[in-house]
């Protein structure tokens, strides 16, 4: 049972988040029948499952909710704001109940009471279903199975007329099974009547013409008899009479009488018997039947199209795939050295397979960012109410997929950004009207692929950030000197410094000094970058650039002096050979390739390695923002699948190298983050050039 409970919790968590999502949809489109139906269905599943797996509070609670939405569904109630508020609060409460079904925490107890009352009120308003009946139905959920004792015979005798409609077979009922069941209740005698069977030529084999008179002596009450016919009560004539409080079927006289009646008339009926029985007084014990036990033989045929796997297993899978890729590189290297054609062929095959395996394994851990959005919608909804602002949250590109580890680490920073947008960005409705903006603010989340990255943009149409304010603040904090003239971008970057907040009023929503610096750090942890762009009174856009995955990349292996480097293949555009002299004897770092002037960096120079004595070198042209930039290396070796390993803590203070990878022969190659590297190099370049220009 524990296993089932665990499963239920997983499932219920999913249901709850689905419910939340559906409710938010409903708020936008309160007349949509389909959504109401969906809400109802989810509640129904929660209720059923809850009761089944011992989460009584959940079951009871959702039962109330379900009643409300049943009214909505039948058009007897409208989706009001009150109702949605209460339901959304209930959704949160359900999550708590899932952890604490016995309602032990005081806070849960209070909440439970409060919400139950609230929902009660909502129902009471419509008075359709009384809360009383809910309680009653709960009490009667478990009925103990019919237990029979062999001690004293307390049987009563019943007369049952069971006359099925002719069409009873049509819905899959087999009346004989019902007779079987009656036989199971006690000692029994069933007399079939076949008088209604028509002539041979008129018989319809799919019709039921037989009916039965049944005499049953049982210690069960009359309800257990009606229970037998519960499925068919509308399709049959069923007449049940109690003949006696004793067991007549063990009475010889009674049986004789039956036989006599059966012979003379076709139907026995109740009238004669009742008269006869009143004369009889006697009781004896009866035999019992026991239920058969079936042998346990199982063969499971499962055809579920998706399965649930623990994330631990996925992590292990990813690790193993990484190891496999590394091992495969060794194999390829060894095969080449051994110059054994057969071995080379095998190695190539292994390479192909491991590449496919890698891709599949990756796609398994990718999840669409849609999963995050419900929480965000909820936040915007609740928070804008608290702040007395009007704002809606729109998401685009919700099917964009990201590594699950990235998604997990992305939630908090994004929540923080959204809070900021609502608190400092979106103005209150009156201010907005004065500025000629629509009352209603909009926060737009846009996700899209861009090369090897996924970009997530959050923009609001709010107040924006005043550059001058940042400047003043930065000066007062001593971050820049009063006469410095930082660029717009540099100013915006200041917002990411620890303790930098331009909010003059500290609210409990944001502006507590724990701010954008934490956001940047958290995003950096998953190898992402954040940028802010803002215009006063037009709004703020925050762009987060994230790597698609964290562990394996397709790379281009290059060599500079004795060291191997890997450049991410996705950013590589083209590779050229270049004459050494053209690379070093240049003052503006430009080279003409394919008739185009392309800025380049001589990596030996950047890495402070002495110039290459060789004649020819190679330039790898990579894409950087919307430009093409060359990176000059000694030699290009070829494509390489790089399993990223983190660098030790001594390499923390640099951003150019994003990780390391182990080559087939065990040497280490450094993975260059081309974006960050080029950014860094150009910064250095301009710093080297500008002072001279000024003089």
């Amino acid at each position, binding site marked *: 049972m524990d296993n*089932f409970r665990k*499963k*239920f919790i997983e*499932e219920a968590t999913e249901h709850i988040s689905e419910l939340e999502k559906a409710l938010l949809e409903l708020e936008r489109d309160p007349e949509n029948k389909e959504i109401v139906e*969906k809400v*109802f*269905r989810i509640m*129904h*599943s929660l*209720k*059923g*499952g809850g*009761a*089944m*797996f011992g989460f009584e509070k959940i*079951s009871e609670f959702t*039962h109330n909710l379900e*009643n409300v939405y049943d009214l909505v569904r039948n058009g007897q109630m409208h989706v009001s704001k009150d109702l949605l508020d209460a339901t959304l609060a209930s959704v949160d409460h359900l999550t708590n109940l899932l952890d604490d079904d016995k309602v032990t925490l005081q806070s849960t107890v209070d909440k439970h009471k409060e919400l139950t009352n609230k929902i009660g009120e909502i129902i009471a308003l419509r008075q359709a279903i009384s809360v009383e009946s809910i309680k009653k*139905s709960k009490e*009667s*959920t*478990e*009925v103990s*199975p019919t237990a029979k004792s062999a001690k004293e015979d307390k049987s009563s005798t019943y007369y049952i007329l069971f006359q099925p409609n002719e069409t009873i*077979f*049509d*819905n*899959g*009922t*087999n009346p004989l*099974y*019902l007779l*079987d*069941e009656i036989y199971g209740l006690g000692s029994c005698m069933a007399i079939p009547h076949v008088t209604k069977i028509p002539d041979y030529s008129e018989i319809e084999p*799919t019709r039921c013409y037989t009916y039965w008179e049944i005499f049953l002596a049982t210690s069960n009450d009359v309800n257990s008899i009606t229970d*037998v016919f*519960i*499925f*068919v009560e*509308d399709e049959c004539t069923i007449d049940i009479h109690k003949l006696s409080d004793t067991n007549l079927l063990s009475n010889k006289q009674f049986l004789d009488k039956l036989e006599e009646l059966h012979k003379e008339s076709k139907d026995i009926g109740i009238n004669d018997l009742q008269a006869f029985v009143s004369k009889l007084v006697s009781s004896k014990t009866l035999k019992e039947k026991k239920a058969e036990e*079936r*042998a*346990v*033989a*199982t*063969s*499971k*045929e*499962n*055809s*579920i*199209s998706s399965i*649930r796997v623990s994330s631990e297993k996925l992590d292990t899978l990813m690790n193993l795939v990484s190891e496999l890729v590394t091992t495969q590189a060794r194999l390829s290297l060894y095969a080449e050295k051994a110059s054994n054609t057969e071995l080379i062929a095998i190695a190539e095959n292994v390479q192909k397979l491991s590449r496919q395996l890698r891709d599949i394994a990756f796609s398994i851990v990718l999840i669409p960012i849609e999963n995050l959005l419900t929480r965000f919608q909820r936040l915007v909804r609740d928070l804008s109410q608290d702040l007395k602002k009007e704002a809606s949250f729109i998401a685009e590109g919700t099917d964009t997929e990201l590594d699950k580890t990235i998604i997990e680490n992305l939630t908090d920073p994004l929540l923080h950004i959204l809070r900021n947008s609502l608190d400092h960005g979106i103005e209150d409705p009156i201010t907005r009207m004065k500025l000629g903006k629509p009352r209603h603010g909009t926060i737009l989340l846009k996700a899209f692929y861009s090369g090897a990255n996924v970009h997530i943009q959050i923009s609001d149409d709010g107040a924006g950030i005043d550059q001058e304010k940042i400047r003043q603040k930065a000066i007062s904090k001593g971050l820049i000197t009063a006469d410095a003239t930082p660029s717009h971008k540099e100013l915006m970057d200041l917002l990411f410094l620890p303790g930098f907040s331009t909010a003059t009023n500290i609210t409990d929503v944001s502006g507590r000094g724990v701010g954008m610096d934490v956001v940047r750090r958290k995003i950096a942890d998953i190898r992402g970058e954040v940028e802010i762009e803002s215009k006063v009174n037009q709004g703020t856009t925050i762009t987060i650039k994230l790597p698609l995955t964290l562990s394996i990349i397709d790379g281009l292996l290059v060599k500079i002096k004795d060291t191997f480097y890997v450049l991410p293949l996705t950013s590589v555009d083209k590779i050229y050979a270049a004459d050494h002299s053209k690379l070093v004897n240049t003052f503006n770092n430009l080279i003409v390739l394919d008739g185009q002037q392309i800025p380049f960096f001589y990596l030996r120079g950047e890495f402070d390695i002495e110039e290459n004595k060789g004649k020819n070198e190679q330039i790898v042209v990579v894409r950087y923002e919307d430009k093409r930039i060359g990176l000059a290396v000694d030699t290009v070796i070829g494509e390489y699948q790089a399993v990223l390993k983190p660098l030790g803590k001594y390499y923390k203070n640099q951003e150019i190298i994003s990780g390391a990878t182990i080559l087939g022969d065990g040497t280490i190659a450094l993975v260059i983050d081309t974006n960050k590297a080029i950014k860094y190099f150009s910064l250095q370049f301009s710093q080297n050039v500008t002072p001279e220009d000024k003089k």
Partner: protein
Amino acid sequence: MAKTILIVDDSESIREVVSFTLENEGYKVLVGVDGKDALKFLDGTEIDLIITDLHMPVMDGIVLIKEIRKMEKYQRIPILFLTTESQAAKKMEAKEAGATGWIIKPFVPAKLIAAINKVIR
């Protein structure tokens, strides 16, 4: 020969607990996640009983029951549906669609077996 029962429910936990109970009883169990998914089993496979939930996405139980009753092979197959105490109207609707009987959720295994014994042996 073990009897074959097809279970249709969108809730994995319900599917599992029902299959578990039935397999313990010696039945062979097939599983569908909604009405549409269940139809793929109804291709001539010998099935002795169908147990279906009513509220399901894609294709709900009522539609499924109606579909099944249209098929010659399964025209008279017993069909039980899963329902809760409170839904009298649904019961009628399902019966009219051609269901044989119902199982009230929540149920203990004994109740499930009792309901099944009403329609197959």
